[in-house]
């Protein structure tokens, strides 16, 4: 069934009895051309692009829980392409362009909202750094705009411009950035892939890889062995655990990141504000809740919940820059487990086992990458060669010295 305005009206007149499930909850077959492990945004997007762009439709997405139960349903939904380095910026800009056409491509309302994102500037040195970043973005075909304090005050009159430590002196805006309804991304990609014949298999945990003479033959799962021509792993925060089943140690630590949402409020915040110096960022959801977050907790964790010191730190950041947030009541807070890589950048690559491919290391910024990650991973799986925009995301870059370290922090995952 194709979704359209006409369909909504028709169903409204017929008591909404004609809507079927958006995708089939499939049982595993014995063999697929491609098995994708992980039904998060990246795995589902990979399946969609494999089927729609590369004509590979005998595909299964295997998810240990339910699709969308991982980070794709836990993130703060911000999309942007404001990176500095050559290895990253063309990739993230491609992702933003894919977001712009996503809803037509998958025939699903993912509520892509290009409401703009602004990184706050507090000092001359920071302005210089952001001018450089903005120029790098423009050179790569993205948009960037430098705002002075007066322009900031016009757009966001209620920010705290007089903070003694971090007075706001301007901002770097990317108008095409914004937010996307995260669950709808998982559901939309799942539905689009399913319509082309992809099997989405839930409650099916991968427990091992079967290999013979250095070739991957398929995966052992909690629902039996599933044979595969190729296996692509996209399990985000669980990358180290899953790849350990294939005998690999990854340049990754798993860390917890927390997020917060307040009660619904009237529209106050038109775009996304990031206060990097104070570890706080915020946007307002379409339901009215202020969605905000800050730094990762900073120690290895698989707990999917964080600790109180970071809650305090994030709230202090919020109070410093946006004092009125103190009047809002917090509704919910939660944590997600992310694969923090050694240089803060992702990995989309082959492995030492033929037919086994890895998509990992997305840190706290992998939601915005979902379309590009899916497309690049599909390209790699279908052609065995890296996508043009993902050539830098090699697994061996830590051996060869070609790290992509946006923050210049070195091999300390909790500082990226």
């Amino acid at each position: 069934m194709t979704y359209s305005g006409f369909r909504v009206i028709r169903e409204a007149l017929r008591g909404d009895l004609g809507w079927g499930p958006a995708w089939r909850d499939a049982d595993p077959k014995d063999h697929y051309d491609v098995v994708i492990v992980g039904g998060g945004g990246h795995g589902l997007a990979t399946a969609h692009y494999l089927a729609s762009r590369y004509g590979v439709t005998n595909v299964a997405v295997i998810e240990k829980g339910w699709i969308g139960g991982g980070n794709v349903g836990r993130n703060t939904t911000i999309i942007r392409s404001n990176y500095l380095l050559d290895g990253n910026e063309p990739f993230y800009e491609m992702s933003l362009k894919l977001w712009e056409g996503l809803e037509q491509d998958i025939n699903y309302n993912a509520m892509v909202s290009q409401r703009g994102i602004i990184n706050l500037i507090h000092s001359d040195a920071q302005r210089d750094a952001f001018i450089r970043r903005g120029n790098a973005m423009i050179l790569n075909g993205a948009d960037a705009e430098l705002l002075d304090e007066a322009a900031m005050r016009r757009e966001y009159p209620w920010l705290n411009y007089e903070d003694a430590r971090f007075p706001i002196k301007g901002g770097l805006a990317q108008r095409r950035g914004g937010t996307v309804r995260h669950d709808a991304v998982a559901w939309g990609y799942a539905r689009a892939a399913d319509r082309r014949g992809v099997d989405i298999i839930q409650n099916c945990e991968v427990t091992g890889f079967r290999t013979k003479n250095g070739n991957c033959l398929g995966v052992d799962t909690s629902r039996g062995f599933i044979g595969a021509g190729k296996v692509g792993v996209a399990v985000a925060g669980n990358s180290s655990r899953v790849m350990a089943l294939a005998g690999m140690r990854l340049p990754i630590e798993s860390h917890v990141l927390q997020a917060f949402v307040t009660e619904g409020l009237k529209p106050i915040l038109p775009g996304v504000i990031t206060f990097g110096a104070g570890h706080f960022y915020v946007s307002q959801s379409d339901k009215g809740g202020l969605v905000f977050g800050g730094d990762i907790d900073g120690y290895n964790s698989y707990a999917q919940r964080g600790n109180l010191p970071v809650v305090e730190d994030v709230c202090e950041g919020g109070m410093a820059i946006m004092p009125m947030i103190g009047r809002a009541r917090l509704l919910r807070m939660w944590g997600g487990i992310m694969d923090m890589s050694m240089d803060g950048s992702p990995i989309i690559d082959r492995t030492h086992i033929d037919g086994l491919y890895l998509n990992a290391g997305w840190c706290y910024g992998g939601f915005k990458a979902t379309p590009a990650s899916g497309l690049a991973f599909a390209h790699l799986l279908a052609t065995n060669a890296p996508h043009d925009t993902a050539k830098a995301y090699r697994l061996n870059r830590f051996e060869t010295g070609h790290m992509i370290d946006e923050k210049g922090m070195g091999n300390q995952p909790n500082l990226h």
Partner: protein
Amino acid sequence: MIIDHPLFGPRDASEFVYLGDASLMDRPDWKSETAAQDFHAYAYLRDNPAGPHRELWFHEGGDRSWLVITRDTVTHEITRVELARDVARKQRAPQ
């Protein structure tokens, strides 16, 4: 999290800074034939287990001692806290 410091007793984890896997104490031999691979593994590859994890914490807001803490990464429960210098001495003592 509360870290039971061997010298001070229970302290709030926010007094401490996290470094990473305690294997960072075992620096490879730079004179070895395989030093390049060994240092790659040492500097970049991690076990990253779900479960008990031995890790280095620095008491920055305290006595600036390094600790080796055994903590479960699934529950955050801390089961053992040692001074890193004691661990290092034990490791280096002739067997």
